[in-house]
């Protein structure tokens, strides 16, 4: 299954969850949020939310700014 995670194409096993996709880009889950196709996925729903072909996942955290 091909998805876009933070703008980069990635191949993940069929039925991968948001939790698994996030783990592919960061080891730390603290201070991190995810949006699937421009909708925020609450942390409590990460395990139960599965990705589909061509989904776009954004995984953000806080950096220096402002």
């Amino acid at each position, binding site marked *: 299954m091909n998805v876009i995670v933070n703008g980069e194409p990635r191949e993940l096993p069929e039925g991968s969850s948001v939790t698994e996709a996030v783990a592919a880009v960061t080891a730390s889950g603290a201070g991190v949020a995810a949006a699937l196709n421009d909708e925020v996925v609450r942390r409590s729903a990460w395990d139960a939310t599965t990705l589909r072909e061509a989904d776009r996942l954004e995984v953000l955290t*806080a950096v220096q700014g402002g």
Partner: protein
Amino acid sequence: MAPGRNTGRDTGLTAKANQNVKDGDMEDGKRTGVHANGTGNGANVQNAADADRLVIAGDELGSRLIMGTGGAPSMHVLREALVASGTELTTVAMRRVDPAARGSVLDVLAGCGIRVLPNTAGCFTAGEAVLTAKLAREALGTSWVKLEVIADEQTLLPDPIELVEAAEQLVADGFTVLPYTNDDPVLARRLEQAGCAAVMPLGSPIGSGLGIRNPHNIELIVERAGVPVILDAGLGTASDAALAMELGCDAVLLATAVTRAQSPARMAAAMRYAVEAGRLARLAGRIPKRHHAQASSPFEGLATGG
């Protein structure tokens, strides 16, 4: 200098500060207590300053200096500067996770006991800003957001149309919205009417260090605002921060002036004192400006020569 704003908040603070000074005089038993007894009035003025807290959306902050974290050369330098600034609220940006990143700005803020204020820097549309704010709320567990919707990369000036649209959506979603706005009294009022918890007019473009280019507009915003006014962006050095407070702003928000100074921690301390000095000067009530001199020494009793 303009009188206190029409909300009565500033007037109340001034009255409170003056009352404390007056009480000090009475305790000392003489009007000369200011100089004769350094612990009398001095302590009361300090107490008044301590009690003069910034309140945003019902939350009290002990410092009127809000810091940004952008531009610091290292986490170590950032930490030193934040500590020296005395700030209690500091902004961060939200970006895609970088697996190679070393050290987290969140760890620095947590270590200093500083509350985090996520921003929507880099967003050009209301839609982008709203999504970024929602991600920040989820990631950081705060519904406060510094709302930033810029028009173009060259000026980094706010896009007023997108800004108001984003503010309305975020307020409706339960956010405490602190919008970075133009130094436009009309736009500031529209943002307040949209339910924003403060308005944050720029002094000049972000990172420019040009100071406050339109002090009159800042005064107009202060006079008409019913929410805290936070001077945000463009400050270059301590006198700019003091001026913001003297104009009646409730706080200042700055980053570059400190983080890109040759000695960030030293400039952070300068900004801290400038904000305190400017606030005290505002509450003290400056003398009116005069065209001609006014002698401070009496003319009576002069020695006559020849």
